[in-house]
């Protein structure tokens, strides 16, 4: 075990932890938003993320025609291209997420099936998506073109402020600020909060529950798609089972912050990202997944309401 890295690499680990944690936070919204209104763990969200990474790759390679050895882009062209792929990945994920809801959950709900049935259906959908992609890609990892040249703003105590790291921090923060405002201030956002507090009473107000549910899957898909784009741009590769670890980590982040709680997802993601970076620096990177699972189990055992408990949470009945 190596403790000295905590001091020697402190700022670097913080920066990397923040970047990783905010990607987790975006994906965890796909769990938290849905859980808030349905009390259902949307297991398929990990595969929505996977689809998002492949959507990014597909858009860059097959739609825009860049190869892995294409030169990096610059200026307005870079910004427009990245923006286009970003929006494309978000839309692809939102569509998949809404489709999953329609196919795997809605009919069960209409028949009054219990939560366990929906949970099994969710796992079924995620296996179908995963194995489908395994067949399509013949299990091969794929590299994406480096459209973004990884230049650095500079160093600070050993922390490298690289452009992609900064993107991984700034974009999620903007998304969270926008989403937080949407949920607290807008009429549709309020309908989401209302349903998460009480489905029956929301119906009595004239709220169409199915529409609200679709909306939450759409939002969760959009943020998961954004995360998939950022992830792919940073790591420049993907594989059919990329969603597995991401899904567990994002779910852990959601539980850590208090599932169903939007701000909790934000802080839970950051906390987990930091923890993972520090643990893998001290213990070796093979301990990454162990750290995540340990956090998950410990939180579920000792603090099932998450670190922020019911206090930050929108109170539910």
């Amino acid at each position: 075990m190596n403790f000295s890295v905590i001091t020697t690499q402190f700022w670097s680990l913080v920066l990397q932890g923040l970047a990783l944690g905010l990607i987790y936070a975006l994906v965890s919204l796909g769990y938290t938003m849905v859980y808030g209104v349905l009390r259902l763990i949307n297991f398929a969200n990990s595969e929505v993320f996977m689809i998002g990474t492949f959507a990014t790759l597909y858009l860059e390679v097959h739609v825009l025609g860049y190869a892995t050895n294409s030169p990096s882009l610059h200026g307005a062209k870079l910004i427009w291209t990245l923006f286009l792929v970003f929006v494309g990945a978000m839309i692809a994920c939102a569509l998949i997420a809404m489709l999953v809801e329609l196919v795997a959950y809605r009919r069960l709900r209409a028949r009054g099936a219990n939560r366990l049935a929906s949970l099994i259906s969710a796992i079924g959908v995620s296996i179908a998506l995963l194995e489908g992609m395994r067949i399509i890609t013949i299990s091969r990892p794929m590299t994406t073109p480096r459209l973004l040249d990884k230049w650095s703003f500079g160093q600070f105590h050993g922390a490298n402020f690289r452009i992609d790291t900064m993107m991984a921090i700034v974009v999620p923060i903007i998304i969270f600020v926008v989403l937080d405002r949407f949920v607290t201030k807008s009429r549709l956002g309020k309908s989401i909060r209302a349903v998460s507090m009480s489905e029956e009473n929301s119906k009595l107000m004239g709220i169409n529950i199915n529409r609200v549910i679709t909306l939450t899957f759409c939002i969760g898909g959009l943020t998961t798609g954004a995360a998939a784009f950022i992830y792919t741009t940073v790591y420049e590769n993907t594989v059919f089972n990329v969603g597995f670890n991401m899904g567990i980590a994002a779910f852990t982040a959601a539980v850590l912050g208090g599932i169903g709680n939007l701000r909790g997802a934000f802080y839970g993601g950051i906390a987990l990202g930091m923890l993972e970076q520090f643990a893998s620096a001290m213990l070796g990177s093979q301990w990454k997944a162990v750290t995540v699972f340990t956090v998950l189990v410990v939180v579920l055992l000792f603090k099932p309401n998450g670190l922020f408990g019911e206090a930050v949470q929108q109170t539910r009945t």
Partner: protein
Amino acid sequence: MRLEIKDLRVHYGKIEAIKGVSVVVNEGEIVTLIGANGAGKTTILKTISGLRPVSSGSINFDGQDINKIPAHERVDLGISQVPEGRGIFPGMTVLENLEMGKFNRKDRKNEMDEDLDRVYTLFPRLKERASQAGGTLSGGEQQMLAMGRALMARPKVLLLDEPSMGLAPQMIANIFRIITEINKQGVTILLVEQNAQQALQRAHRAYILETGNVTKEAAAADLLNDPAVREAYLGTGAH
């Protein structure tokens, strides 16, 4: 306007909770449904609002069979409910709660302001607490909020599920006074209560419900003097 429930049967799984109930509420009336705990009062109101499916029988509102209409569209028809236990949104402010009262509005600005004005006139306390979270209100204030929220939808008929439950005597008197006032403003009311004394004093007509069956139907004033009713619902220790 008329609300007519005919031979209604409702099940929870295999258990029949409502066993062929018929109730009529005419325009302008306050009709009360009296019954002990578990008699099926809440189930009837939930079924009228569309929250529970009908097993057999019919619910007719404003000359239309509303059986096939989903719950969230019944508000727009003019049926609002104040649910048992108030059902306010605790994490939302009083104002937000009121805004939710009619989610589907065409004219969001002027109409909403008008409705808010009316509700605040009826419940001045709500105006003082407009920016306070609903969950922090006292029981009586929450009841006012739930009623105000239902009135935001300009209902033709207002369904009230045990509005006096858990309130102090003075607040109960206050709530019942306001119920009469709302009725005088032209809102038809179906009032479900265990507090038979107050309900019968305010209502025009009454039904007695016992384990899913209507056992008596009469003018409210008559039931106040009915020895059997006095014995069962008005005697000492009635609840």
